[in-house]
């Protein structure tokens, strides 16, 4: 009798232990999952913050150009037009308007390049480099697989901005004399942007600049894997790998 009672008691004890252990381990799993989620949320938050920072920078630049450029030209026109009619000089009025048009053209091109919209990424990238070749002494070597025009258009825009950002970095900091851009397609698309400038040392640089953060954020949105490869005197490379 006693033995039976003991064994029932022991079984109950075991069952209770099992319940406690299960709850505990479930809790642990929930906790680790929570921690993982938290990390993801933090990361997303960081990403959004970076994008907003870049966007705000861009907005203040556009605001400046609209105010100092377009508005200033139009104010001049207004001043010309307010003169007595015999003193109005149509040439200076139309010149000021033409200048205002040129600035607004520039702003609208920066916001969304017409070639990208109408003829795709390949043409738009060529156009971007056509301008660099024309306005600087940097020599350009560019080779792009036709396949890049098959990428969905929202992703094309991200890739375009990433190349544009890399180009800005080269022009601002690198003192480079040549830039190479290649896109190879083989199940996945590999895009490599390489300049031959002075490069940077990731060991001594505390954190990435706004431009590189922007590249990182955009490539996550594609989604693509991005790599920055550089060392002092070794140029700078941005590499994107995109599964298509």
């Amino acid at each position: 009798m006693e033995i039976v009672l003991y064994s029932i008691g022991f079984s109950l004890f075991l069952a209770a232990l099992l319940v406690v252990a299960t709850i505990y381990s479930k809790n642990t799993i929930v906790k680790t999952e929570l921690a993982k989620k938290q990390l993801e949320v933090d990361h997303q938050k960081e990403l959004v913050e970076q994008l907003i920072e870049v966007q705000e920078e861009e907005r203040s630049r556009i605001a400046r150009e609209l105010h100092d450029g377009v508005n200033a030209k139009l104010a001049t026109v207004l001043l010309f037009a307010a003169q007595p009619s015999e003193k109005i000089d149509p040439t200076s009025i139309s010149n000021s308007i033409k200048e205002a048009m040129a600035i607004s053209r520039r702003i609208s091109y920066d916001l969304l390049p017409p070639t990208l919209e109408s003829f795709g990424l390949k043409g738009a990238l060529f156009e971007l480099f056509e301008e660099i070749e024309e306005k600087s002494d940097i020599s350009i070597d560019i080779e792009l697989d036709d396949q890049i025009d098959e990428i969905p258009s929202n992703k094309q825009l991200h890739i375009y901005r990433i190349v544009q950002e890399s180009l800005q970095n080269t022009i601002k900091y690198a003192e480079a004399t040549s830039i190479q851009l290649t896109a190879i397609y083989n199940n996945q698309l590999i895009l490599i942007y390489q300049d031959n400038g002075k490069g940077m040392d990731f060991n001594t640089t505390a954190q990435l600049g706004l431009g590189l953060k922007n590249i990182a954020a955009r490539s996550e949105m594609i989604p693509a894997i991005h790599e920055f490869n550089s060392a002092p005197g070794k140029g700078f490379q941005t590499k994107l790998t995109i599964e298509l």
Partner: protein
Amino acid sequence: MIDPIKLIIADDEELFRKGMAQLVSEHPQINVIGEAANGEILVKMLRAAEELPDIILLDLKMPEMDGVQATKIIKKEFPDIRIVVLTSHYTKIFIVNMVHIGASAFQRKDTSPAGIIDCIIEVHSKGYHFDHEIMKVLQKSFASGEAIRKTKFNDTPLSDREKEILRLICEQKKTSEIAEELFISTRTVDGHRNNLLLKTESKNVAGLVLYAIDKGIYLI
């Protein structure tokens, strides 16, 4: 009395359309037969038209259907209509792509009315009009092969006579002037021009000029 040039103006800005219609109508040779506020209206208008225009003055940025889409459709359904594109985007890649889908000329919106009228008349008599600025853009060596490759020119060799005629076309000569210079009939010139279009797979004379510049047949 020469038949007037029938023109349609497509632009989403009503005041621009009206102003432009009034200005170009002052020229005795130009007759504005219609206006459209976007690409969709323009295409519908052409499909229902009893009288087709010779030339369309076409803005690129329009709601509903933009000028690029409209150009593609119009050149497919009405290949004889010539298109003068209103754009300020003068890059080699863009111009070459636009010619490839069938544009015959480019004008900035801030061109003088006289400039636009000249352009319309040139396009009507010679099939294209590239001003000095466009020629300079096309001359650039950058990405030349890439830009032109999109137009898929094929490599059928041209005869010496065809090259000669192509050069004269590039010099903006009219059919009658070419015929006179080479002591041949205008019909022979037309025949050569058609062969050139076929051989180079160009949609129009503007495409022929791009080909000539790219292959070094015409040096600016």
